[in-house]
């Protein structure tokens, strides 16, 4: 019964409010601080051009992090997103190279839109396997998605024999050009990857805030038993979040391989951890039920702008790792400050 209320802050002095604002908006203030510090340290950091380049890097992690947010809101974890990203890129590359059908003796070159749809379906399928294992066979999310991490990576390596698909440009003669559009083109100066991220973030944000599914997700993450007894279809919700996470990973895979115009089987290794970090920095609770898209986006930008800033000012990659780690631990520390006082 420890959860019976810390009632509203008594007195509500100005100091307390500033502390509270700083705590609740911590990801935002961290981002502002990062931008200010690097702008002082490097003359090239503070420019629209640089922000857009950095944002297109953030897009990859951001997409993964949105999928991860859904899973974490449900009280789960999805360790397979990095591998799913890699596998999606490889599948896209494989389809772009043409599918040979030996019996008919022809090579099929699917158009780019079909490649995109098939790749997203693959992501959804990988997520569905995770979801069914977790929701129906009660495999702990950590274990099920850890297994999928290996399996998806292994399949990607098998398909390419460890090699990388280059030359994803397609050709006019085959009618499958345009794959690099996702990674290279810009609309109104904004990279397509960033626009994709913005659309996904808006849609998921709306789903979370304004649909029955969103409410079900928060409820089953906060207290699955209570949600179930209130008529929430907790199993479908659970499967859906892993499917959505797989889809987000597939989209990220498409964007990444398009940016690189190549699809390697090892792409996205350890990206799942960055995605988890972004969600946590964004204030979500790993126990489920707390968090939102805005926070997660801020978290992704904090990580992206920090690591790119360190590159720009010439700090060694080893130090970047140390800094990123420190930021994550600090974020979790602040999370427990915020939620700890409320109890569970």
């Amino acid at each position: 019964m420890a959860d019976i209320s810390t009632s509203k802050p008594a007195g509500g002095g100005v100091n307390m409010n500033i502390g509270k604002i700083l705590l609740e908006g911590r990801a935002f203030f961290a981002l502002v601080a990062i931008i200010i510090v690097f702008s002082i340290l490097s003359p090239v950091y503070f420019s629209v051009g640089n922000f857009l380049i950095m944002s297109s890097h953030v897009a990859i992690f951001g997409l993964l992090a949105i999928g991860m947010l859904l899973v974490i809101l449900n009280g789960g974890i999805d360790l397979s997103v990095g591998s799913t990203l890699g596998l999606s890129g490889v599948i896209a590359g494989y389809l772009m190279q043409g599918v040979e059908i030996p019996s008919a003796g022809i090579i099929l070159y699917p158009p780019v839109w079909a490649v995109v749809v098939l790749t997203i379906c693959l992501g959804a399928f990988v997520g569905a396997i995770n979801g069914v294992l977790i929701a129906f066979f009660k495999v702990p999310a950590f274990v099920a998605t850890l297994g999928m991490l290996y399996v998806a990576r292994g399949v990607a390596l098998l398909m390419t024999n460890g090699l990388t698909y280059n030359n994803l440009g397609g050709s006019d003669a085959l009618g499958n050009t345009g794959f690099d559009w996702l990674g290279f083109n810009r609309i109104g100066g904004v990279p397509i990857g960033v626009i994709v991220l913005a659309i996904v973030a808006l849609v998921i944000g709306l789903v979370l805030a304004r649909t029955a599914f969103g409410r079900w997700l928060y409820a089953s993450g906060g207290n699955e038993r209570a949600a179930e007894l209130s008529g929430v279809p907790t199993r479908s919700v659970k499967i859906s979040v892993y499917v959505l996470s797989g889809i987000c990973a597939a989209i990220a895979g498409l964007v990444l391989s398009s940016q690189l115009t190549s699809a390697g089987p090892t792409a996205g290794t350890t990206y799942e951890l960055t995605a988890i970090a972004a969600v946590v920095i964004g204030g979500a609770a790993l126990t489920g039920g707390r968090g939102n898209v805005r926070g997660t986006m801020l978290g992704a930008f904090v990580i992206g702008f920090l690591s790119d800033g360190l590159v720009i000012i010439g700090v060694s990659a080893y130090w970047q790792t140390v800094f990123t780690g420190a930021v994550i631990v600090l974020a979790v520390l602040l999370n427990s400050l915020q939620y700890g006082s409320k109890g569970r």
Partner: protein
Amino acid sequence: MTVHQAISTGTTGEVVMKARDVAKHYGAVKALKGVNFDIHRGQVTTLFGENGAGKSTLMKILSGIVTPTHGEIILDGEPVTFHGANDALARGVSIIHQELALAPNMNVRDNIFMGREIRTARGVNFAEEERVTRELMLELEEDIDPLTPLEELRLGQQQIVEIARALQAKSRILIMDEPTSALSASEVEVLFKVIRDLKAKGVSIVYISHHLEEALEITDHAVVLRDGEMTAYAPRAEIDLEWIVRNMVGENFDLGSPPASEMGAPAFSVENLCVPDPSGHGLVVDHLSLEVKAGEIVCIYGLMGAGRTEMMETAAGRLKSTGGAVKLHGQDISGLSIAERINAGLVLVPEDRQKDGLVQTMTVGQNLSLASIGAFTRGLFTSRKAEAKVVDDSIREVTVKTDGGAAMIGSLSGGNQQKVVIGKMLATQPEVILLDEPSRGIDIGAKAEVFKLLAETAKNRGLAVLYSTSEVGECLSVAHRIIVMHRGRISAEFDHTATKEQIMAASGEAVH
């Protein structure tokens, strides 16, 4: 080394531990409101009280698990503050929980010495541990080999192991929470013999039981709690069963009377319902049949483990039955999911509102509207306006005291939280509402309001209401009929003119 050198100094009957004005508040909830009583050397003091009266809170304070909000514990004439259960244990106070805190995969010896192994330079001295264990078992006159895995022992024997563990720690004060609730009659005899032996050795016992007569057999002093206050305290010689019941239940606080509602056709019925025991053998609900008419309020009275919760959870669709039917307006709904049953008009207000009723991460409004999201979804999206109306209507209907729908659910008192759970289910416009212990852990004023709410909804909406309780006073409030359950079956049925004694007798609680 004998096991109990430290225990038997001092004279029997002298006060070893006192609680002085001990209170515990959880936010707005006053679980305990200033309790005074004494524990005497070599004697048994029993705490009587209904669920939510504050017994377990008091026990946790005495054993150092919980620190009191104010008041003090006096041990051997000196005020003490326990820093956790281990500190209390070090000073000779130990507690045996209803749910035994032992490791079933380990043997008796290792359980007794768990966390305080006899260590030497070369590791644990198992030989010495085994010798002490044998000695303890000899002392308790139980033929249990120290190397038996705990899971191979009967529950009664496991309890003995737990007692041995307390004795090994040289406990002078032993707190036992419902030690007999899972024991067979012969195991209870053994336990009582052990308790008498312990008394003779100067160990003081604090005993808690719902089996009043059983407790009277063993106790030397009685303390009665009600709604967090101590209502009575007397030595055994001055009291009897009626005295306890009177002080437990209170001078008939008005919890309402059955509403004059128009009764319709049977809205809810279960027929020959069987639910297996989770342990795998036997049935917790044993070929049970009952029905509730529209507009009727029926109360199920029974002790813990009587099968009330299992019956209700099976009816709501959480547990699977192995036989029988659950019917809504005569139609079998056994195959439906929880959500489908809610849509059909059958809802359950679960017993444990923290675990099963509320989502602590959400606001009052989100909790209230959780079960009826469909009612304010327009197309793809929820309508804020329509939701606000559902929430405001609910808050008004069930009279939740809150700053509004946006307040966090944790900011409410227990009674108001309970009203939110009830309001959430009423918002689905049900025809049948099952409430499992709706009055658990809420104070008497809130209880009266909850029962008034049930009476009104039954009368105005023609709702069929079935609620369970383990407090006999609450049977004789708004219920038209009272069904007594005992070991998965209906042992008696009364109308609202029954007496408390009749009901308790039928539950197997008071009279054999």
